[in-house]
């Protein structure tokens, strides 16, 4: 530690302006060889813009400031030149071509016009063997899991012998096992003397991996922390986190999790022996039974693929044959809502039983991205006939625009959706604001039972805290809340009870007061 390591990457005074906004304002970023630098900040803090400049997406001349790699000044005209200088990006949304083989991906930039397949495969396979990631050069990339595809991207960066590697939210779509493997790889790359920039929203990752944390806020350097003290000892999360969050959000937050609601009411929902089979016959959820009281926040934990989302989808009628997922899903089991047995075949049935479902995938099933905040917010209420948005019956009912503007405006204000106006397309909003729109559209339907599936995925700390507060507020108003999350601290901090799923069945029920992350981990993976 005493030896000053080589300064591999040095971004000096980077300023980038877009019409109307200054995305980056004199940002500095230095990364040394053999170092993992976590780049943190809320959405819109300028992380992506900075990385686009580093990778040559924004060419020389479109910004101010200087880029030095190993002490030499760089003028990237395009991404190719950034590649040539040894900079590689491992993207959040992996840019792979599913029909091509691993070998073709490795040589994508310089595939010859006439390909000698045998030579290509032997050449690339030899290289892959040295990596020891278990990749085969002939595998079709589309056949790999998300984690596998990410390995291909990493292999591609190493094939070019990139010395500066940027990981942009690399774990957001990985299973726990894949995450563990990724950590090992990242640590190996560090020990090989590469400079790594790691972008993530997950705090536990930052404290586990990073040597240094660089915080951006509103396009400026907000602060920088080292993970070790002057004696070279690693500092604990508790010592680092408060300062980090203060820099990120620009104010201090004493506790992320608000006080839990303590008033419980009658049983709202009871599920008995819920079983779900996929069209291919795979059991996704097996014999799951639980009940939920008014005012209670019930957590649903477990590893990726344990059946959390599937449980929600099955109860909510998402998997009915007339939906876009198609026929073939088999759901069995009984559902009681406030003591009455209900057949919930379609989402509409569930909505009539006063349920609401904030789904995991905002872009996939949460929002119509091209449409306005107003249309998005009013859609489920129009279906369910709530909030007085329409006059008349059936499909021909007339939408009342004045009423609609008033109601959606009220909810946008309540949830503090930041937007220029209600006619703005939701696709233009930040992740946190999009999530607030999803929450608002469901709260408008006046639900009694609320399903929240990963409600804080990919959103910044400020918005996260606001959503946590809403969860407790709604619970104290007597709503029953089912919360699925892959972040264990979130479940422990918000829920009264936690159901841990493993391979579709209930593995443990834990009281959140006494349970620890270790308990949950053990129950989830056993």
């Amino acid at each position, binding site marked *: 530690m005493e030896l000053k390591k080589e300064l591999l990457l040095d971004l000096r005074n980077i300023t980038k302006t877009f019409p109307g906004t200054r995305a980056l304002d004199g940002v500095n970023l230095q990364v040394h060889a053999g170092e993992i630098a976590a780049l943190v900040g809320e959405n819109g803090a300028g992380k992506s813009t900075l990385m686009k400049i580093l990778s040559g997406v924004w060419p020389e001349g479109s910004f101010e400031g200087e880029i030095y790699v190993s002490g030499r000044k760089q003028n990237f005209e395009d991404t190719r030149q950034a590649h040539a200088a040894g900079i590689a990006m491992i993207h959040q949304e992996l840019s792979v071509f599913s029909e091509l083989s691993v070998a073709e991906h490795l040589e994508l930039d310089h595939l010859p016009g006439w390909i000698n397949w045998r030579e290509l495969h032997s050449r690339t396979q030899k290289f892959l063997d040295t990596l020891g990631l278990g990749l085969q050069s002939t595998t079709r990339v589309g056949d790999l899991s998300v984690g596998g595809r990410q390995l291909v991207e990493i292999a591609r960066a190493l094939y070019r012998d990139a010395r500066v590697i940027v990981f942009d939210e690399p774990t957001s779509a990985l299973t726990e096992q894949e995450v563990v493997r990724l950590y090992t790889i990242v640590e190996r790359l560090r020990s090989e003397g590469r400079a790594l920039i790691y972008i993530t929203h997950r705090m536990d990752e930052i404290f586990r991996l990073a040597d240094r944390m660089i915080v951006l806020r509103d396009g400026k350097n907000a602060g920088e922390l080292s993970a070790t003290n002057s004696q070279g000892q690693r500092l604990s999360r508790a010592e680092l986190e408060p300062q980090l969050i203060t820099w990120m959000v620009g104010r201090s937050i004493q506790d992320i999790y608000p006080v839990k609601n303590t008033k419980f009411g009658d049983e709202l929902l009871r599920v008995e022996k819920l079983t779900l089979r996929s069209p291919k016959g795979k059991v996704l959820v097996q014999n799951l039974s639980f009940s939920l009281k008014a005012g209670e926040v019930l957590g649903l934990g477990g590893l990726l693929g344990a059946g959390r989302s599937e449980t929600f989808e099955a109860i909510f009628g998402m998997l009915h044959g007339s939906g*876009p997922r198609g026929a073939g899903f088999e759901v069995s089991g009984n559902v009681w809502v406030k003591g009455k047995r209900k057949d919930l075949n379609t989402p509409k049935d569930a909505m009539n039983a006063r349920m609401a479902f904030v789904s995991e995938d905002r872009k*996939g099933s949460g929002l*119509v991205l091209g449409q306005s905040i107003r249309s998005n917010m009013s*859609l489920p209420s129009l279906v369910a006939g709530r909030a007085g948005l329409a006059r008349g019956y059936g499909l021909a009912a*007339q939408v009342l625009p004045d009423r609609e503007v008033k109601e*959606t405006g009220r909810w946008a204000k309540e949830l503090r959706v930041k937007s*220029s106006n209600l006619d703005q397309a939701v696709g233009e909003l930040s992740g946190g604001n999009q999530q607030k729109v999803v929450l608002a559209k469901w709260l408008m339907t006046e639900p009694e039972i609320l399903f929240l599936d990963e409600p804080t995925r990919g959103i910044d700390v400020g918005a996260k805290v606001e959503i946590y507060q809403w969860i407790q507020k709604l619970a104290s108003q007597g709503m029953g809340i089912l919360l699925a999350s892959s972040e264990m601290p979130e479940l422990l901090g918000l829920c009264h009870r936690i159901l841990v799923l493993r391979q579709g069945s209930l593995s443990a029920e834990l009281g959140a007061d006494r349970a620890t992350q270790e308990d949950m981990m053990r129950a989830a993976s056993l």
Partner: protein
Amino acid sequence: MNTTVVNSSELELSKSGTKRFSMDWKVYRSLFALIILMAVLTFLTEGTFLSSRNLTNLTRQVAINGILAIGMTYVILIGGIDLSVGSVVALSGVVAGVLQVNYGLAQWTESQAILGAGLSIFAAMMVGVVCGTFNGFMITRFRIAPFIITLGMMVIARGLALIFANGAAIAPLGDAFNFLGQQYLSPTTSIFVVSGVGALVMIQSLLKKGKSASDYVFMGFTVLMTGAMLYTFLGYRGLPIPVLIFGAFGIAGILILQKTRLGRFVLAIGGNPEAAWLAGVPIRKITFGIYVVLGALAGLSGAILSARLNGALPTAGELFELDAIAAVVIGGTSLLGGIGTVRGSILGAFFIGSLNNGMSLMDVSEFYQKVIKGVIIIFAVWFDTRQSKSK
């Protein structure tokens, strides 16, 4: 206290309410394009284009494509496509023709004549409904791409039309039936209908609270259009029946999309079917219904077309599907679904109709007409996408 401190003054509160003085220029862009085209055609034909007689003919020619384009707008809005409408026009026309000629309904007289005509028109529409039902059923139940199903239907319906008609034209049809395609409302009735509709639209606009700039532009446009229609129809023989039908469906199509729950559902389905489904929208029912309605409209168009020609041709309606799709796209509707308007499609239908009509007036050979039309359609859509991107 264990609660979180959130300083609300730091968070920008959203401004509620909608844009007050903004204009929906996209709609007017199609309108300007149409006006420019009409001006050019007027200039090139030394004014003939703008005569009442020619404008009446133009509306008659536009009516059929317009009716199809209204239905097609909904199909494209939900992310679908229907290539079979042209063939369904032919098939339903032929079925009406067979009833009229082979079954002798054309010879029925007096009050029975009207019954015969009604039966023929009803049969034509039912043919369309059957074709639309087939399309809708296959698409919703078996999840086969609409492009494929309706392509198949296009070939099947054309084949059936040729079979029923024995490959030849069926003529002449009865006068009562031909009324549908050839007759006019009397000038007096036309005044009442046109100015009545214009007045209703004006009253609606005037009653609207919180008028924005685009509302005033719209009112001006309404006055202008009412005037133009009165000039057109009174200067010749009155309001043609096909145009009356087109207008009725046009108004219904606009209102349903803009004002009703169904309209919202249609836009949501096209924008993101997963999200629409999760929000409780009955996707399958609506998708199915929209294909059936477009089928019925195609059937009606078939009846109108054969009535206008006083004969049913099994080869009629060729490429009508493409004209309808072009009208929808020129009108600003996205082929990906979720974004678009019916009024845009109506303007698009007039754009294509004017192009056809103007070139015929100028005696451009039909071969060249096709080339020019294709080029202009491509140019119009290219211009439109370029404009939307730059926004």
